[in-house]
């Protein structure tokens, strides 16, 4: 690999052992992927700050980096934690999990990591521009900013994103290159997409069909999808496969580039029907008993629009959460601050729900709460519920989930 003088000095350890370790990682990845040089990045987003996934080994490694006093060179934001770092006690998180988590979080803070603690950093302070080269982890955020914004990132892991944040560099390969951003599979939608959970299911369905480095071009979606639909779709498609970029005709910025969406590059055409969407709802609903004790909404973290919608459903119908059910509404501290001021949090809490910040349905350490049957409107949360949280999932729309929270029963979808 060709390195600049500054990159070479980082690799040789002249600028500190943290930068050296980070550059060793990036050079190795560059070698593996056949990259000829590094490119500067404008931001990084790091996923390995959750104690649940990186454990004591991850914690030790990050502390060793923080001890070098090397700092992130570019804006580097952090993914959700394993606990709500503010209201952990009242929500019932274990003190040991909180303490372990905050040791890791503190090490990231010492490195200069910005504690957004969200999987939707693009909503709250890390928003790349079109064409920016960035190095992000968190597969949902990666595919969202690649596709909806037109920034350029590969699907980084927690450690490679950390290394990119420290050095301000990433190896130049993959989705940083224009020619790899061409649509290769044409998706013709014939399903009636009515909610963000339908988009979540559509994403999950397509993720299972796309292999390798395929880039889908979606056509005929009907109404223009909202930001909430697109983040649900991003989470779905990134969960069931390796997809890293999509284009939507008339919606995403690169879909207007005739070279990127030329029909001659399409190797395959996939038609999506209502039955394909319904099949995902069925496939991910693996719980057997219909009694529900846990409902989780907020994978990916909710926008202020979505929280307002939930609050208004509870208020308008004067609904109450069933006493045996915990309803958790997940978002970042930032969005919750707005929800508090809008009165949305109060409406949800008075109905018996709980606002949960800076963690998520997948990363939260809740095993000790002995919850069993879990309803969610997100394909990603349903997919990971059995392996990550020992929960039996039901996957449905927001209405299905609120109904389950109120009645304590999952109603079979028709």
């Amino acid at each position, binding site marked *: 690999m060709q390195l600049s003088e500054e990159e070479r000095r980082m690799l040789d350890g002249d600028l500190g052992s943290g930068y050296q370790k980070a550059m*060793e990682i990036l050079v190795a*990845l560059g070698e593996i992927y056949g990259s000829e040089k590094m490119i500067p990045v404008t931001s990084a987003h790091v996923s390995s700050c959750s104690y649940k996934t990186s454990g004591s080994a991850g914690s030790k490694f990050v502390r060793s980096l923080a001890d070098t006093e090397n700092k992130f060179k570019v804006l580097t934001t952090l993914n959700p934690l394993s606990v709500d770092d503010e209201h952990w006690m009242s929500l019932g998180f274990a003190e040991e999990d909180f303490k372990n988590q905050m040791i890791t979080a503190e090490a990231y803070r010492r490195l200069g990591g910005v504690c957004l603690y969200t999987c939707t950093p693009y909503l709250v302070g890390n928003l790349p521009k079109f064409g920016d080269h960035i190095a992000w982890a968190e597969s949902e955020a990666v595919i969202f900013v690649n596709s909806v914004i037109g920034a350029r990132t590969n699907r980084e892991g927690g450690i490679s994103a950390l290394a990119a944040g420290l050095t301000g560099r990433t190896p130049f390969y993959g989705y940083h290159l224009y020619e790899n951003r061409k649509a290769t599979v044409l998706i013709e939608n014939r399903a009636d997409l009515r909610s963000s959970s339908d988009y979540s299911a559509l994403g999950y369905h397509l993720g299972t069909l796309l292999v390798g480095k395929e880039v889908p071009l979606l056509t005929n979606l009907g109404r223009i999808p909202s930001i909430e639909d697109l983040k649900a779709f991003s989470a779905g498609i990134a969960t069931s496969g390796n997809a890293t970029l999509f284009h939507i005709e008339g919606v995403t910025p690169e879909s207007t580039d005739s070279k990127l969406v030329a029909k001659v590059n399409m190797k395959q055409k996939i038609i999506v029907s209502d039955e394909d969407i319904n099949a995902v709802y069925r496939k991910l609903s693996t719980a057997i008993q219909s009694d529900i004790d846990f409902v989780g909404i907020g994978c990916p973290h909710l926008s202020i629009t979505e929280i307002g919608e939930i609050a208004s459903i509870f208020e308008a119908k004067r609904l109450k959460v069933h006493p045996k059910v915990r309803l958790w509404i997940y978002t970042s501290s930032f969005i919750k601050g707005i929800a508090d001021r809008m009165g949305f949090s109060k409406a949800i809490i008075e109905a018996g729900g709980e606002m949960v910040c800076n963690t998520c349905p997948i990363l939260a350490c809740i095993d000790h709460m002995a919850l069993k049957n879990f309803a969610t409107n997100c394909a990603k949360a349903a997919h990971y519920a059995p392996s990550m949280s020992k929960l039996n999932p039901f996957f449905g729309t927001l209405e299905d989930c609120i109904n389950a929270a109120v009645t304590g029963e999952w109603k079979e979808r028709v």
Partner: protein
Amino acid sequence: MKIIIHGRKISKGTGEGIALVSRSAISFFGGFDPKSGLMIEKGHELEGMSVKGKVLVFPYGRGSTAGSWILYAMAEYGTAPSAIINVQTEPIVAVGAIVSGIPLIDKPEQNLFDSINTGDWVKVNADEGLIEIGQNNRI
């Protein structure tokens, strides 16, 4: 008899030990128990064997990216391999080896599985991209 094979440096350093050869890919996550260094994946050809202090030879890594942290935890517990040789490495094992300070060479110029058997004594000098193999526990 001594064989020398050239390869590509991925993670710097030198290490040596008895070779432990796997012809199948390895997932460190769910594969190795970091406290004991034993392969615990059911049905894997190395099941029940310890990798501690050995030169681990396998085609490439697979599985969860959390595998990098397992390798780091093994280094912390002192159960890690002394060096790794891959046919063609991938990011999980490469990143794990670098953060843990375990020498790693890949893309050897000769077929690894014809040249190295479990039990051979192997020296890895990643900085020079050199693998030295001596049969019968000797170089």
